[in-house]
């Protein structure tokens, strides 16, 4: 029988289709892996309610495990506790910055509405940045511009 550690290592291969540098583990959406005699259940928690990537992620998890030779796989969504960016791994935040997206800057309980948030530019690290729009290319991101290197950038909002 396959062990949990092996399943988690397979899940390292499944990425978010919209933010392809992040694996589902980096995102912190895998809540539980249950292994029984003849079946495997992966429990994931949805990110944003309307996120179109969720269905793709569920299908990709299934495909990855099938490709590894496993059978009877189910992927279940669990609503509670709701996903939060606090669950994003440090490795995930590092990868986001490298990719050009500023990672979440706060723990959700400290500053839930990100009032007066200072978001450093992922390219030049300047803190001299401005919010352009509360919503960027996806719901989970806001659009900022850097007033030093003059580049626009996405910011992965606290959730």
């Amino acid at each position, binding site marked *: 029988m396959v062990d949990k550690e092996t399943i988690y290592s397979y899940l390292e291969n499944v990425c978010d289709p919209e933010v392809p540098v992040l694996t589902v583990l980096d995102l912190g959406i895998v809540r539980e892996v249950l292994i029984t005699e003849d079946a495997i259940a992966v429990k994931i928690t*949805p990110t*944003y*309610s*309307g*996120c*179109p990537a969720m269905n793709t992620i569920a299908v990709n998890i299934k495909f990855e495990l099938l490709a590894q030779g496993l059978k009877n796989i189910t992927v279940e969504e669990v*609503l*509670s*506790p*709701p*996903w*939060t960016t606090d669950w994003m791994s440090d490795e995930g935040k590092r990868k986001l910055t490298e990719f050009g997206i500023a990672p979440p800057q706060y723990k*959700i309980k400290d500053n*839930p*509405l990100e009032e007066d948030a200072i978001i450093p530019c992922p390219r030049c690290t300047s803190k001299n940045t401005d919010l*352009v*729009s*509360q*919503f*960027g*290319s*996806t*719901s989970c991101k806001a*659009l900022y511009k850097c007033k030093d290197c003059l580049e626009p950038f996405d910011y992965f*909002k606290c*959730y």
Partner: protein
Amino acid sequence: MTDKLVSYVLQLADNSLIYGHRLSEWTGHGPQLEVDMALSNIALDSMGAARSLYQYAAELEGGDKTEDSYPYLRDVLQFKNVLLVEQPNGNFADTIAKSFYFDCFQFHFYTALQNSKDKRLAEVAAKSLKEVAYHWRYSKGWVIKLGDGTEESKEKMQTALNAFWDYTGELFTPTDLENEMLQEEIAPKIEDLKDAWQKSIDAALEEAGLSITDTTGPWHHAGGKNGRHSEHLGFILAELQFVQRAYPNSEW
């Protein structure tokens, strides 16, 4: 009891669906690219919340119901959304005024619904609240920007706020169903949300240099929550349901 819970869940779902559908009409037509993307994203969050609720209703009802049964196969009188969310988008200030009132309501409503005795509704509320907080921040931001902008933007924002003011009363007037749900500790007491809502609205308007002159007094449009809608909902459904009506049971 399950019947009533289903009706209540559908009422909340209909609010989110119709609100989201209206905002999605801006997709490709926003006055700026950033606005286009923002309104589309808010629409998506809202439809996502609607889906969670329709899925729950389908589970409660069982049989051959699915999340699609409700948005696609019910007629106008069976929809229980408030009248505010079905009103046409009008100009950009009109859309922002509707969102300003409704996002603020949703923020306070979901905050209270987190304490519902119905575990699933409490879970949906906790999740949606995180999203609605950003919606509210967005619409509030635009009210302040337009109010504090040019003479023309201020005038248009004020006109829009006045135009939709008398749709806000329905948000806080409970129906028999809502009162029954309150008895069961499933629904929050919506009359009690009014003060907090008013405070949030007033604070934003003050910052925007705008104000609401209450010209209607206690009279407000109402009826949506009982299925009595304005003419606009029929047109929304005609578009929303066309494919399912013309080609029943078709799937992508």
